[in-house]
């Protein structure tokens, strides 16, 4: 039972590139899913009956199935309907579609949380629909849903590890490779676990600070 701590010596650049890939997929996946989620939520709240049903179907399917299965459908099944993607684009797209469904629900809850009286008051004052959304609903909504948004962003950071299964060279993939090469599975995985733990704790702390900042900014 030998615990070899020097297993990482010489793999510095590899690990770094893996970390960068994790951050890249996380950032782009989050950005895309936030945008897509917002659009979907607008459709869910303001859209026609047909649109609402369609979007509701999308949200329920994505939220009701494992992310891994969705990735498999996209990456392995995609080519059969003409969508051949490299691992990284597939990973980012999969993350975006997955996250968007959850963000859509969060945004939707936010829209519904604003008392309707405020919307009516704004309309009577002459604001257009668009202005009401932008100036009245959106800012208040942001405060209410910020914790949920941050929580989901953290969840997405953890989901990036699943991308390793479709061979995206992010951190888990890289470290697993090192482990396989050196047969030092436990050391590498332990370090990996600690690394993610640190990342998540840091993001949580950052998120809490952000929440407090926004809250104080709006309660003046």
């Amino acid at each position, binding site marked *: 039972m030998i615990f070899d701590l020097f297993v990482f010596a010489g793999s510095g650049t590899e690990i770094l590139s893996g970390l960068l890939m994790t951050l890249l997929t996380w950032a782009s996946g989050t950005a895309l899913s936030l945008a897509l989620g917002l659009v979907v939520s607008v459709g869910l709240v303001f859209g026609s009956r047909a649109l609402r049903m369609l979007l509701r179907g999308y949200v329920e399917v994505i939220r009701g199935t494992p992310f891994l*299965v969705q990735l*498999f459908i996209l990456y392995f099944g995609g080519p059969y309907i003409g969508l051949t993607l490299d691992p990284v684009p597939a990973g980012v797209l999969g993350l975006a579609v997955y996250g968007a469904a959850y963000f859509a629900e969060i945004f939707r809850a936010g829209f519904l949380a604003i008392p309707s009286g405020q919307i009516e008051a704004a309309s009577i004052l002459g604001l257009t629909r668009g202005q009401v959304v932008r100036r009245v609903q959106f800012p208040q909504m942001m405060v209410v849903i910020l914790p949920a948004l941050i929580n989901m962003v953290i969840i997405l950071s953890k989901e990036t590890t699943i991308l390793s*299964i479709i061979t995206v060279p992010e951190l888990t993939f890289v470290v*697993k490779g090192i482990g396989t090469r050196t047969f030092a599975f436990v050391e590498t995985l332990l370090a990996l*676990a600690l690394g993610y*733990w640190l990342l998540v704790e840091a993001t949580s702390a950052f998120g809490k600070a952000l929440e407090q900042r926004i809250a104080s900014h709006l309660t003046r």
Partner: protein
Amino acid sequence: MGAIKVVIQNLPLLLQAAMMTFILSLVATAIGLVIGSLICILRHSKRRSLARAGAIYISFFRGVPLLVQLLLIYYFLPFIGIDVPSLVAAVAGLSLCTAAYLAEILRGGLLSIPVGQREAGEMLGLSKAQIWRRLLLPQAVRLMLPAIVSEVTLLLKASSLISVIGVAELTRTGQNIAASTYRPLEIYTAIGVIYLALNLLLAAGGGMMERRFGLVRQ
């Protein structure tokens, strides 16, 4: 259509795997509830070190991605000399992870139990352990039943990851069939539909449990 034919041919295998996934999730939840209750008790302990330990457990198992946790357990157990089939390692991994989330859920329930109920128990001579076991935890579980059912559905989806450590559950079975039939799109879509169905089943079961065991709060 050829697509439907492929799915129907492999349906028995898929449904068998689906049942395994379903039962596995329930078992992991049950074990997770026991561990989660213990962690909850730790968190409430008067002794700083115990409370800290509980908090660290929760932080670790919620912070580290489940995939990494599963891989760690899969390689760690043989490392310290414990040789178990991958299924056992998988259930252990899922249980430990869900325990952290359940501990937080139970904490929410515990906070809404008036402290006077514990005092009444103390006055009647019940020990701390008895108070936890018979008064506090049963109520917390009933109060938080919706959240617990929610957690089970999350666990059901997360169980797809144990395919990575070689357990022949629904996703892994799907991978095998997709590989042998060259029909990934159809098979994985079918798998998705089955997961959806399992979730519906869970929701229905959860609803039944809530009606039967849910607490009427005054």
